[in-house]
């Protein structure tokens, strides 16, 4: 199994380190020609959604990646990655890949002083560490999407087919469980 990590901006190395701890190899996607490499799943990391979104458009990556995801490429988005996959962002006019049946709220906890850490339940895994950095949350799931974790009444993780998103950053903590969950989605052992 080989996972591609979108490496336009943000905490992509942290994801690569998590995968390597799981014994999974990774490649980086920085431009269109990188899509020719072999990969079985895609991770969209945390960072700034406006930056990654803008680069996706300017580097002609948006529609090829959208096609891949629509055709079943498993994808895991954290924080900014969640916003890039959301069908709509309720407090922002920008939208990007729009492959997932969720409506997200950007900077939902305010500025950096609103960032926080908590340990909470994740469906199918148990209690895990969750670090929220200027994080979004999911205002609504519908259609094919269903919630996987809720903190203070807000949905912070969801799944829609082979698409997984978290508003928090599993790549910043020691628990490998969410990455393992995603790898199981990729190799089909979750069904």
């Amino acid at each position: 199994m080989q996972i591609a990590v979108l490496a336009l901006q943000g905490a992509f190395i942290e994801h690569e380190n998590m995968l390597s701890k799981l014994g999974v190899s990774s490649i980086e996607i920085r431009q269109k020609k990188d899509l020719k490499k072999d990969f079985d799943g895609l991770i969209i990391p945390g960072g700034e959604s406006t930056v990654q979104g803008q680069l996706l458009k300017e580097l002609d990556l948006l529609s090829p990646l959208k096609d891949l995801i629509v055709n079943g490429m498993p994808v895991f988005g954290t924080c900014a990655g969640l916003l890039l996959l959301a069908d709509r962002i309720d407090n922002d006019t920008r939208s990007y890949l729009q492959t997932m049946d969720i409506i997200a709220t950007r900077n939902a906890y305010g500025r950096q002083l609103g960032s926080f850490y908590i340990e909470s339940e994740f469906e199918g895994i148990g209690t895990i560490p969750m670090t929220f950095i200027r994080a979004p949350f999911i205002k609504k799931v519908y259609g094919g999407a269903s919630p996987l974790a809720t903190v203070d009444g807000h949905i912070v993780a969801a799944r829609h087919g082979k698409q997984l998103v978290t508003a928090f950053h599993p790549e910043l903590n020691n628990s490998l469980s969410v990455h393992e969950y995603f790898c199981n989605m990729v190799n089909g052992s979750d069904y």
Partner: protein
Amino acid sequence: MSNNRYELNKNLAQMLKGGVIMDVTTPEQARIAEEAGACAVMALERIPADIRAAGGVSRMSDPKMIKGIQDAVSIPVMAKCRIGHFAEAQILQAIEIDYIDESEVLSPADDKYHIDKTGFDVPFVCGAKDLGEALRRINEGASMIRTKGEPGTGDIIQAVRHMRSMQSEIRRIGSLSEDELFDTAKSLAVPYDLLKYVHDHKKLPVVNFAAGGVATPADAALMMQLGAEGVFVGSGIFKSGDPAKRASAIVKAVTNYTDAALLAELSEDLGEAMVGINEQEIDLLMAERGK
């Protein structure tokens, strides 16, 4: 792992990696920067080149001006306070700034003590010329480091010198034996624990950006190849002929900093770069402020 602000603040710096932080003086410039792909903006009344030209004492910006920029964009907003001026830092924290730059670009308020940043909830970034300065700032609570470079000059030489010095010292520390670390901590005037971290991980315990003198996509790519994890661009963008285009080109150069063919494309038709001054032509070395 605990719910401690310092961890969360280091984490925010991790999210900025691979990005470009741009100096802006008005909400309109902030919007141009965000559109061009800035991962954060630095709200300033005057950009470093103008501070340098104007002379006199330069201070924290008007909070109203900073709030105007906070309202204009959705990305993190940073602002500068003077070295050692903890009251300015308290004010910036009160308006919920996302990052405080305790900066040598402004006139220092204290020639001996930096701010005790451990007493704050908001994160701090500080400048450093070498590993010793970087670790001293981290020990005081900085959760992000940047090279000092020489602000407002458009001359990259100092940023290169600082980044090279830091990287070469990190390599040297990594090669020391455990018992040599105690004496090296003493000679660098840094805490042993932080030096041990550098020795074990072969990197700083926080994110390290390049700053000071970046004016072109090539400058940005140079700093990334020298080991920077992202880039601050101060005067380089809004002192140039076509700020939006140059900003966007520098953002793309930071993402694809090893692809020379793409860098060539990005460097075309950018209009006039900021004029710049060479380091020999300036009287005031801002990088010498705060050690």
